[in-house]
């Protein structure tokens, strides 16, 4: 018996150890356990399929096809989501409008992240006067509430950007405008976080070492410090998409968002809220775009929550 046991113990000692999991694999495991985040990811994937895959079934011409004889029809077999004020099919418009809303969300978030990371990194790394100036500027932008800034900027740039043609489709110039101004008004929070991270990471030994051996500043920033600050950046980017979609909906509601002929979920809602008749008697008109916005933002929020947990397990939720 003893010999058998000692044999098995001895055997065990010579088995190779299993490889330790990398950070990525650990994060992915944690993420998978977060049920809501997975649900959010799935829902988001479905929405993307709806918006971009839907083009295989319904052409853009169909989405823009007006027929004044069937204005404001309730949902039916032919028009599952009903028709709008000029007889266009709402289902098709949610597909094409969704493309724009999602694209605006992603682009605006990217613009915001780019600016935020740039300013935060420069301020945190160089410190001193550069830090002082950039942080004062950040505070100045922070001081004005985002919606006010958006309104004033939307007014300033309005009409200065002509319609653009991309891939055979014509977009109102206001799409680019909205992306730019939402990006320009949403970078401040990330800049602060990135700066704080840079400030603390700058003093770590491996950075001091890199400096000592003469690595150029740009290389240090991009290849050494930045990868270690990815966690808040990713989370901020994800939630930034949700914020951008909501911001677009807000400005469109107030009339200064994306202009016709381009449809977005936001400006479909604006049109819907401008008549008592439509609120009360044509609820399909505002319900569907609103529902899509809520679903998208919800799934992104779930996703972001899950990402935050997965990438930074010290936070408690």
């Amino acid at each position, binding site marked *: 018996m003893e010999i058998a046991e000692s044999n098995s113990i001895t055997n065990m000692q010579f088995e190779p150890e299993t490889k330790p999991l990398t950070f990525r694999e650990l994060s992915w495991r944690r993420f998978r356990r977060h049920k809501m985040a997975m649900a959010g990811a799935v829902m988001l994937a479905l929405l993307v399929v709806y918006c971009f895959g839907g083009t295989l079934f319904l052409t853009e011409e169909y989405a823009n096809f007006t027929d004044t004889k069937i204005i404001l029809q309730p949902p039916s077999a032919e028009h599952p989501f009903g028709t709008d004020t000029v007889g266009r099919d709402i289902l098709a418009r949610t597909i094409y409008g969704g493309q724009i809303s999602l694209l605006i969300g992603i682009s605006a978030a990217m613009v915001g992240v780019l600016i935020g990371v740039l300013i935060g990194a420069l301020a945190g790394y160089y410190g001193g006067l550069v830090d002082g100036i950039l942080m004062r500027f950040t505070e100045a932008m922070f*001081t004005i509430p985002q919606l*006010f800034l958006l309104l004033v900027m939307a*007014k300033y740039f309005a009409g200065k950007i002509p319609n653009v043609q991309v891939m055979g489709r014509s977009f109102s110039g206001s799409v680019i405008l909205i992306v730019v101004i939402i990006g320009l008004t949403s970078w401040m929070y990330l800049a602060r976080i990135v700066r704080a991270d840079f400030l603390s990471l700058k003093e770590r030994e491996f950075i001091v070492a890199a400096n000592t051996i003469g690595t150029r500043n740009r290389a240090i920033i991009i290849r050494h410090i930045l990868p270690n600050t990815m966690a808040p950046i990713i989370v901020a980017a994800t939630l930034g998409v949700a914020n951008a979609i909501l911001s677009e909906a807000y400005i469109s509601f107030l009339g200064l968002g994306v202009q016709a002929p381009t449809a977005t979920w936001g400006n479909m809602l604006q049109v819907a809220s401008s008549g008592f008749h439509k609120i009360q008697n044509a609820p399909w008109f505002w319900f569907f775009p609103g529902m899509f916005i*809520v679903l998208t933002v*919800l799934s992104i*929020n779930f996703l972001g929550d899950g990402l935050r947990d997965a990438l930074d397990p010290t936070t408690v939720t």
Partner: protein
Amino acid sequence: MSRYVIRRLLQAIPLLFIISLVLFVLMRASGDPVATMGGRRVMRPEDRQRLARQLGLDKPIYTQYLYWLIGNDWATIDTDGDGEPDMPGDRRGVLRGELGKSLVSRGKEAWDIIWERLPNTLLLMIPAEIVIILFSLIVGIFSALRQYTLADNVITAISFIGYSMPIFFVALISMYLFSVKFKEWGLPFLPTVGMFDPKLGKTPSQVALHMVLPIFSMASISIAGYSRYVRSQMLETISQDYIRTARAKGLSERAVISGHALKNASLPLVTIIGLDIPLLLGGAIVTETIFAWPGMGRLFVDHVSRGDTPVVMGILMIIALAVVIFQLLTDILYAWLDPRIRYE
């Protein structure tokens, strides 16, 4: 401490200057306030020209900014259109306390217009803030204490949905449900829009009744967000060692929570809410528009679209000033509440 306060205040001054310059340039460069003065018709060229001159809109932007800042009673302006300056101006400028005259409601001081609407906004925002604080705390703590139970999950789900919704969607649905549909179904219903019913006058009960839906719309979204924050703070606090010690010492759960955990968990909430208050001054633009509340937010939207720079700049500078002051106050409050924090 006082040195810190003074330093912050001094830092705020160039900040406010930068903000005012950027915003002024944006405002003046976008749209022509004279263009919409024609009402239903387009303005006649002669009138456009005359009004642009009389209102000082034909000067270069930096001159206009200068006049806005320090007035033009030290300069002569051309009043009768012959190209020669003849009379000193009559504006004293923002730094001397005069926000200027509105371009839209000519004859009215921008400050008077803003002052008419400011109390209405405060009337909506302060109770809303109190509701938000109270309910965020209640819901967040309740949710934290019942972590992972059905109640917690339901509340979490509702919170997520809540702050994923655009505010006008919430407002519209609540208006649709509680005003239109309740009335249809014969239930007691809430009024739709406005601050009070004109036939009944501006009585406190009328105003209170009309406040319910707007406050509900704004609060529900904020509560959804803040209750999650309180919950996470609470969970973090509860997992602390000293709470474990307190429990080990035999204190009742209630004493542990209310006596120890609660205070520490709610501390960071103070910071966040303190920073939120000046944003509320912006008047929750969308809420006021939907519910026709005569506040500063609606004033802003109306006057931005008509290019009324003095009023718009006035509102923006008031908000900027409020933000700076409240940020400072919050920092001081936080230091006062938590004696371990020291500023030098």
